[in-house]
């Protein structure tokens, strides 16, 4: 029993809190200096083979998900729970206390105290409730023989602020755990016009079935005049059993969510492949072809042959491409085109328009996190708790009217658990109201 008590006291202690918070803060620094999540070779190059082994033993390369870091977070949670359980009952007693049962001698010992003598024997002559109410304090009154005691308080729930903060941190951890076990993080690259049913976890690259199909219709890339990227966007379609359910264009900062799975625009890749769309002007018949660089492809029905024979590129981004086009036995035509520029070719009998662009893959981050709303709720709770703990205080005032040999003695007393300066000001203001009431009474009953 003694051991349990000692353990309880240890887990409830502030020393442990300071130790745990300090340890988390200090060890966290390691992971900001040593790059995280790289393959072992990286650490061998960066340091040396021995140090790399040492780092691996301590899980430093993935320290934020290591057993010892989780251990520290677990210790923090245990500490938060036990210290709150330890202190909460006493706080709850203060919040729900019957303040009219206060030992009367304590009233005269309070820091804020003011007393008035009144020469009268009429006990009920002054309505103190009304006076205190006009000063902004709603009170309850109890008769104690000839005497009476009134009490009023404000902000008693602010005493819970600290515990709301502690709870909020546990709620955030809980949300993170829910996300860890019931969610996933992954990514996928989808070339334009292709679709996929699965994505790959990150880290680990384990395939996960989405339960539906997602297709990338097109990927768009825009640049500012100075060459900085302006926008990445993907036109996505969700399909179930081959039926189109949802069409949406996503951008960085505006993802698409379907069935709890969210798709974020995160990267892209330009391929050495092109998309060519050819439309026959007279019939409006149109077809799209995807073709590799410098390969001839044909639309047999129309007896057309075409290909991309040259490009002008910056890195992997093609700015212009040179199209080679041959209809039937007509001489071949070549022309430089920018992406999506439409050009018309006239063969002997027919007119065609042609559009070409480089083929891109869109890189999507995929996440399912059912815990995220719990985390956000925890964050809201954290701010609420901090506000209550720091900016609100529990203010209590008592007004005690007792019968003495000479008449009556009025004592106004009060205290606050925080921000005492502000309380003194409020108390002084209330003194003014009591003063006024007494003066009015004395004027009426000279």
């Amino acid at each position: 029993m003694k051991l349990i008590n000692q353990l309880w006291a240890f887990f409830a202690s502030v020393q442990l809190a300071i130790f745990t918070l300090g340890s988390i803060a200090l060890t966290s620094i390691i992971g900001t200096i040593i790059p995280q999540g790289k393959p072992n070779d990286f650490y061998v190059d960066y340091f040396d083979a021995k140090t790399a082994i040492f780092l691996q033993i301590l899980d430093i390369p993935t320290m934020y998900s290591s057993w010892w870091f989780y251990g520290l977070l677990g210790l923090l949670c245990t500490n938060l729970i036990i210290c709150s359980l330890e202190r909460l009952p006493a706080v709850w007693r203060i919040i729900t206390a019957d303040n009219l049962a206060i030992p009367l001698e304590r009233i005269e010992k309070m820091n804020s105290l003011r007393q008035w003598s009144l020469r009268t024997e009429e006990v009920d002559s002054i309505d103190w409730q009304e006076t205190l109410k006009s000063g902004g304090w709603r009170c309850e009154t109890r008769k104690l023989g000839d005497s009476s005691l009134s009490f009023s308080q404000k902000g008693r729930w602010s005493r819970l602020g600290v515990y709301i903060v502690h709870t909020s941190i546990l709620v955030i951890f809980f949300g993170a755990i829910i996300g860890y076990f019931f969610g996933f993080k992954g990514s996928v690259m989808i070339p334009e016009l292709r679709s996929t049913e699965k994505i790959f976890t990150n880290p680990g690259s384990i395939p996960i079935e989405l339960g539906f199909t997602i297709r990338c219709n097109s990927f768009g890339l825009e640049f500012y005049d100075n060459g900085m990227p302006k926008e990445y966007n993907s036109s996505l379609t969700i399909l179930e059993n081959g039926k189109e359910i949802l069409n949406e264009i996503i951008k960085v900062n505006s993802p698409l969510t379907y069935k709890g799975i969210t798709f974020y625009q995160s990267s892209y890749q330009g391929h050495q492949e092109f998309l060519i769309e050819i439309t026959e002007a007279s019939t409006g018949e149109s077809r799209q072809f995807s073709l590799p660089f410098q390969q001839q492809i044909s639309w047999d029905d129309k007896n057309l042959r075409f290909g991309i024979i040259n490009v002008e590129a910056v890195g992997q981004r093609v700015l212009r491409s040179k199209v080679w086009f041959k209809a039937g036995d007509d001489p071949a035509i070549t022309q430089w085109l920018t992406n999506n520029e439409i050009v018309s070719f006239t063969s002997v009998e027919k007119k065609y328009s042609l559009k070409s662009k480089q083929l891109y893959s869109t890189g999507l981050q995929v996440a399912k996190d059912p815990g995220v709303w719990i985390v956000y709720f925890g964050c809201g709770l954290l701010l609420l708790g901090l506000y209550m703990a720091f900016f609100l205080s529990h203010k209590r005032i008592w007004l005690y009217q007792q019968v003495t040999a000479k008449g009556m003695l009025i004592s106004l007393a009060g205290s606050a658990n925080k921000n005492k300066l502000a309380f003194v000001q409020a108390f002084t203001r209330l003194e003014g109201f009591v003063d006024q009431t007494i003066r009015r009474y004395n004027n009426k009953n000279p």
Partner: protein
Amino acid sequence: MDSSQLLGITTFTYLFSTLLYAFLLVFKTPRLGHIATYFTAAAFLIQTAGIALRWVESYQMGIGHAPLTNMYESVVFFAWTIIAFYLAIEWIYKTRIIGAFAVPLAFFAMAYASFSSNISKSISPLVPALQSNWLIAHVITCFVGYAAFAVAAALGIMYLMKSRTQPAPTPLIKQPDLLPSLSFIDDLIHKTMIFGFIWLSAGIITGAIWANSAWGTYWSWDPKETWSLITWFFYAITLHARYTRGWSGKKIALLALIGFISVLFTYYGVNFLLSGLHSYGSGS
């Protein structure tokens, strides 16, 4: 008149304000106090106009966005919030002398922004990741927190200075002491720290929400995030030490200073010394 001229003028006016407050501190001439305040307030208005003008200029360039998106703009905004926060404290507590410790911080920030060769002053368009409504909320919450911690550190220096001169035997001719009492400074350090702590919390939260809407993870232990958490823990420990251990005075003043070093590292050091998601917050 363009924004960079206004912000350049601001740098010099903050220097002059610093000198006025320093003069006030050394020569103890209370009448100078009013001048220092008016001057600082005027400098603050010039800076506000400069920031507003930079905002307008970005729209004229067709890439309109709030001027909070690169190192130069953030340092300017940091100086702005420090002065705003300081003037509010001066207004509420009617003590001028804190300016001798707080205004220099704003001056150093502005001087660094204006004269450093490794930060670019040009207005540049926003990369896709920064095009979010969370940008303004995130930056403002963080910087209000940073400014409060800066002022807490300034108060810490003031406390340590005063506590060193305090035990000296009372001089025969009593000189007016413009520094407020130690208990007053101690209380104010505590209050500014609390204020900063709440805003830092809000800054971390808005950052997490933004990260989640951009990348699908609210927390990824990138160096900036981790350092903001380290700073948060540091102030959490300090507050616990005060509430439950009764720490006050020199200890808290010292912690306010160390905490601000952690803030500076989170804000500035991480961008230049460590790599991570916040790379767009750095120099060019």
